[in-house]
Structures are given as C-alpha cells and as structure tokens.
C-alpha cells in the first residue's frame, strides 16, 4: 500500500511536470494576446509525429538529435501559422472568436492530415533511457526521471527567457500592458507571433516527451488540449504561476483518481474540481479580475 501510494505520487509529479510545460505555453498565448488556441493539442501530436518521423524514417535513434531537429521546425511552423492565419484576423471586430474558429478548423485539418499521412494506427517511440532505479521495494524508471528533468528544465529555461532576454521582457510587457508596450516601441505583432511560436515548441516538446509513454495517434491531442485548458482555467487564465501550481495539483489528482477509481474517472474528476473552483473563485487560483 505504502509503495503504491509513493508510485502514484511519483507518477503524478511526472505527468504534472509535462502538463506544466504545456499549460504554461497555453496560458502564455492567452496572457499575451487574449486569444485561445484550439489547435494546441494538434501541435502536441505534431511533436510526436516529428519525433516518430526522425526516428523511423531517418533512422536516428538519439533523442538529443530529435530535439535539435524538431524544435526549430516547431518554432518556424508556429510562427508561420500565426502570421498567416491568426495575425490577419486581429484587425477585425470580434477577432477573439474568429481566432477560436480558425484554430479549431486548423486542428481538424492537422488531425486529418496526420491520419492521411501516417495512418490511424498508433505509433510508438523508444524509451529515452532504458532501465530503472530500484530502491528496496520500489522501482523508478529512468525514462520518467529524464522526462521530469527535461520538463522542469524547459520551464526554467522559459522563465530565464522571460526575465533576462529583451524579447522575453517584451512578451511580459505586452501581457501586462499592451498600450504601454506600444508606447515604448515594442512591435506587438512580432511579440504575438513569437509567443505563438514559443508555445508551439512547448507543447510539441511535451508531445515528444510523452510519446514514449502513451503512443502517438492522430486525435491524441484533444485529450491534451482539454487537460491544458482545464489547468489554465483552474490556475487562472493568463497566470503562469497559477498554471504551474494547477498542473501539479491536477497531475496528482489524475494519478490518485486513476489509481483508486480507474482512468475513466479522471476527466470527470478534473472537471468536478475545475467547476468547484470556478464556482468559488471564478478567476481561478491566481487569476485576476478583468
């Protein structure tokens, strides 16, 4: 029993860390541009498929090279998609709703393209590191340790970027006060595109990390979109700190509910917690009014 509970906690921490990486990306887009990206889950699958292609088509069996090759592709794709699809809408009335519609359309297009290109069958990826750490009764897979370290590393790198680079500072500036950002001469359009591109990398990297545990499927991104959305809303829309806490709380909740009641109850439990929280605190854990 004790060992089982420790296992559940560890599994919650590991999933929580990847969720945190992905939810921070989603909340970042919302915080900066006040738009919601429905194709976010499809970028998760894109990460998985990119890794799978490099692994099985180019026969490269090194996660280091997979990351080196995938990250620039995700960055450029994210940037172009924002420039071509989202940016022109921003000049129109009710653009937030139009952005939702177009990203929803993009999600369907991408998911169906994956099915045409790669087939409906699940793709699996090799483990990033074989073997496991055994201490007495409990076993901790090295793979999980690496996933945890890389996710946390990604979040720390992102934090460093936000606080220490000029582009990072301008992202925070636009999120905190778009009018002020314009006054000091920050090119808002570039910041919107850069934010979208960075968030695409964050969720795509999450997709690569989790593909080795949960397979890659054409529609696998929806589950991630729903979870990332629940985390974002639970943590407070636009609050990065809130998303971090929420990701670990919900990762843990998922692990415990899955273990005690079975995986079918996980989404129900997530929504129950979300609805209860929003009933008491409509702005989420750390969100602000307005």
């Amino acid at each position, binding site marked *: 029993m004790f060992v089982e509970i420790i296992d559940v906690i560890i599994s919650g921490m590991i999933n929580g860390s990847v969720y945190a990486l992905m939810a921070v990306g989603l909340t970042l887009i919302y915080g900066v541009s006040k738009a919601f990206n429905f194709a976010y889950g499809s970028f998760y699958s894109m990460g998985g498929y990119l890794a799978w292609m490099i692994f099985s088509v180019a026969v490269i069996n090194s996660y280091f090279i997979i990351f080196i090759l995938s990250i620039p592709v995700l960055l450029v794709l994210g940037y172009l998609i924002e420039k071509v699809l989202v940016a022109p809408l921003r000049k129109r009335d009710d653009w937030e709703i139009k952005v939702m519609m177009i990203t929803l359309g993009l999600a369907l297009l991408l998911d169906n393209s994956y099915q045409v290109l790669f087939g409906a069958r699940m793709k699996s990826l090799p483990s990033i590191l074989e073997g496991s750490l055994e201490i007495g009764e409990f076993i901790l897979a090295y793979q999980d340790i690496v996933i945890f370290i890389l996710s946390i590393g990604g979040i720390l790198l992102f934090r460093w970027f936000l606080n220490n680079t*000029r582009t990072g*500072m*301008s992202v*925070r*500036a636009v999120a*905190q*006060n778009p*009018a*002020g*950002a*314009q*006054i*000091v*001469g*920050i*090119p*808002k359009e570039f910041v919107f595109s850069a934010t979208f591109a960075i968030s695409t990398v964050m969720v795509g990297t999450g997709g690569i990390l989790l593909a080795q545990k949960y397979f890659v499927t054409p529609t696998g991104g929806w589950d991630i979109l729903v979870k990332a959305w629940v985390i974002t809303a639970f943590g407070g829309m636009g609050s990065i700190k809130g998303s971090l806490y929420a990701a670990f709380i919900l990762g843990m909740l998922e692990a415990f509910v899955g273990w005690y009641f079975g995986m079918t109850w996980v989404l129900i439990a997530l929504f129950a917690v979300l609805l209860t929280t929003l009933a008491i605190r409509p702005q989420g854990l750390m969100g602000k009014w307005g």
Partner: protein
Amino acid sequence: MLEIKNLNAYYDDFHVLKDVSIDIKKGEIIVMLGPNGHGKSTFLKSICGLVSKIRGTIKYNGQNIAGLGSEKLVNMGITYIAENRELFPEMTVLENLKLGAYSKTARPYEARNLEKVFALFPRLKERSNQLASTMSGGEARMLAIARGLMSNAEFLAIDEPSLGLQPNLRDEVARIIKEINKQGITVMVVEQNIPQITELAHRLYVLEEGRISFEGSKDEALGNDHLKEIFLGM
C-alpha cells in the same frame, strides 16, 4: 523639427482633429491647452504613431512620418508619455526603465540614460527593485516620465503630466520638464490650465473642438479675453 499640416484624426467614424497645423522648432517647449475631450491627447498620440486613422502630413526633420507606427517613431526619437502612465505593473522600477530603452537607437545609451534618469529622480533609484504597481500616484508619474527619457528621445510628447498631482508635485514636474528641455530635448506638453506648466511655454496653443483656436506667446494669451473666458470663466 516638426511641421504638422492639416492633421485630421478619427476614432472609428468620430472626427476628432480637424485640420490642425502646428510648427515645432528644435529646443522649444510647446504647451497646448484646451478643455477636456477636445482632442489634445489625440493630437499627441497622432504625432507619436498611436492613432491608426489619421490624414495630413507630419514632417519630422524633413521626412513625412504620418502613418508610421510607434515602433518606428520611437526609434526615430519621438516618444509619448501617457497621462494614465501605462506602466508595467508586475515589473520592477528598473525593468520598466529598461523597457523604456527598448528601441534600437536607445539600447547603446541605456547605461548612460539610466544614470541621467536616476540623477533626475533619486527616489526611483532608491526604489529600483520595487514593483511599479506598489508605487504612489506621484512616484508612478515620475516613473512614466523617466521611462520616456530612457528612449533617448529628441522629441517628448507629455500628456497631462500634472493630472492628479498635489501642488508641490506639480512644481516638481515643472522643474523636471525645464531640466529635460535644458538637456536639448524638444518638449510638447498637453495640459489643463496649470500655471506652473503654462509658465514654461515658449509658445502656447489652444485646441477647442478639434481645431486650433489660439496660437501665440504667454503674454498674448493673457491679453486674450476669449481664453480668460474658457479657462477662468471671467
């Protein structure tokens, strides 16, 4: 330095500025007065590339800059300081100042300008690690002006700098504007009728219902019965 001819500005279909023409020479302090809601802020924002719908010409050192966005104009040395300050609330004073030096032209001078700004506003140096959202109204106003100075501007457009300040702080603002101007920066201030600020003006303009209704020196303004009427109700 700035030749503005027949400037018109619109918010949606609302025609705010109607054929406004103004010349600003290098080194001047220009003060524009006028009742609230008659287009003074819009005028400053139009020069600084913050109003999307404008017509007319704005020549800056001979080049037409009408229609250029603020990200280009800040680079060229034209900076707006907002009446409602528009600071970054969750950033420190220092980070706010550093973002003031965001433009390419200001970056090489960041360290030098920071020193200058701290000399002008010693309180900001004391509070450089405090979040902007925790500052008092007066301090936040000083920070907004200081952030504008960080852009290494040649022309500063200051929107109602004494709004909401107590009289002794108004004196302080006036002193700082004078000091900024002494350092060679051309300044245009938009204000309600605040004597300390009006006193600084090399030339005065009055904007009513989107049109210039008066142009001249302080003495001419004092002798103008219409101005007395609108500002003092005399």
